[in-house]
């Protein structure tokens, strides 16, 4: 139990701060785009790096906060029936569907993105969408990192639910 508590508190700390820190990428993206727009219209000289940097920053901003959202139970769900469930039924639904849906999906994505990141790093893959051609593998590595955080947070949330189910609704 002690180990589990330590695990949960550490993972939730990571999830919380991953969301808060990654959020600054939103500001970074505002600047990478506006600088490009400014240079294009004022100096007639668009940057060659803006497009690549923006989609890499943006892509990170789109998936990195998922662990944070999972921890705060902020995912889109339809709770018309759910609200009428007893706390016990709600816990059972969540535990069963975590095993059936959440873990298979996230582990597949984690595995696939990790192998893709590995092979991309081996060949030092470069981006080929613009003229700038920066290294692509850091972005490829970011994806399994994001999903690792989601899986870790998923295990923490799952453990909380299972504990609560086994101890008559008590919080861990």
């Amino acid at each position, binding site marked *: 139990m002690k180990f589990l508590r330590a695990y949960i508190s550490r993972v939730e700390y990571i999830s919380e701060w991953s969301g808060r820190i990654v959020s600054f990428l939103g500001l970074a993206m505002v600047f990478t785009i506006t600088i490009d727009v400014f240079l294009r219209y004022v100096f007639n000289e668009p940057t060659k790096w803006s497009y690549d940097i923006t989609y890499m920053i943006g892509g990170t901003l789109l998936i990195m906060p998922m662990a944070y959202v999972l921890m705060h139970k902020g995912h889109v769900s339809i709770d018309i029936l759910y609200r009428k469930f007893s706390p016990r039924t709600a816990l059972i639904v969540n535990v069963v569907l975590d095993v059936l*849906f959440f873990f298979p999906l996230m582990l597949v994505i984690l595995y696939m993105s990790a192998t893709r990141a590995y092979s991309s790093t081996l060949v030092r893959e470069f981006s080929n969408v613009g003229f700038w051609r920066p290294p692509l593998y850091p972005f490829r590595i970011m994806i399994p990192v994001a999903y690792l955080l989601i899986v870790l947070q998923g295990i923490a949330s799952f453990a909380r639910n299972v504990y609560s189910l086994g101890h008559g609704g008590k919080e861990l």
Partner: protein
Amino acid sequence: MIELSPEVLTVVMFGLLIGFVLVGYPLGFVLGAIGLIIGFLMEGPPMLNIVYLRLYGAITTYTFLACPLFILMGLMMERSGVSDSLFEALHIWLGGFRGGLAIATVLIGTLLAACVGVIAASVTMLGLIAMPAMLDRGYSKELAAGAVCAGGSLGILIPPSVMIVFYGPMANLSVGKLFMAAFIPGFMLSALYCTYIAVMCFLRPKLAPSVSAEERRMPFLKKTRMLVFSLFPPLFLILAVLGSIFMGVAAPTEAAAVGALASILMCLAYRKLSFAKLWSALVGTARVVGMAFTVVIGAAIFTSIFIKGGGTDVVKDLILAAPGGRWGSFALIMFITLILGMFIDWIGIILVMIPIMAPIGIALNFDPIWFGMMLIVNLQLSFITPPLAYAIFFLQGTLKPEMGVNTGHIIRGVLPYIGLICIGLALMVRFPQIALWLPGKMIR
């Protein structure tokens, strides 16, 4: 490997989807997992690679990046406090008319809509500012609640709207064109709402007593100054963002970035900018984005396998079989969208149904932009039709018990607006130019 006929696939996939979503499990996980499991049964290990490719494709779609930027812009606008000063100004100007405050509410909803793009923010703001003001002056609870819910929901329709940012890539349409197409329908709905309020209050003055003259007394110059100072900055922001798209100067993502920067500067100008505020807006953005893209990725996996398995043809045959020719099929599509909107979040509807419905619209020989606008205006209904009506939930979240407003009041309040949106849709069927005129005038 299991062979599933397209008919069986359609029933199984949508059956599982609806079943598991209704028990309250997160939509994005259900979509992705059903796609993965069914796909794996049909395709075997190659499905694993499809999952990765769909994920990678979704997060590197440049147009989608407009979504966090518009959300950031809206959250900064919210923090600038401009809506408070705007309501105060309109309260002085319009308070003397019967129903003036309710009309002011819809007008602010319209204007906020143009800068916010997420309905949670606009309904909440109106609920906090306009609702108490109207109730204090003896407005009927139904009238007040209806104006807040309907006015606040316009945010998702009037550009720049996040819904359109998702619709564009899903239907292979230009987001810029869709923005322009949504402009007139959005203002048309707003005008319908205001007219309705004015007529109702004229017929039954008790609904909305006019604000006393003492309360409104203020020197003309001061009055005007107030209005200009609260109206001009957001108006300028909107015109800059939409204007640059209209003139072909900027892609939606670029316009969104400029708009986000402008909203931060606006906060600075109103002396409302602090690091804590900026950070909370950024974290709020990350939160909405993380939530939305879980659904985007799940839906991308789900629809790819649904389309691959031939499910779209089943839906298409079903819809084309409707009696009454192409308009019969069209009515069926609108009806399905309406029903789905009552139960499912709009983001799920856009991401799952549009890849299936948009090609049917083309097969039926409808203009894709007009067809998209009809669906998007139709989805306005999804915010105010119970049992799943976000506008109602958000309004409830802002109410205090001493106001004595219950869910019954709110639902009775929004009912007329369901009729008004249907009138709007009928007008768009009769006069397609409402949606098509402005995008046709676009440069480039």
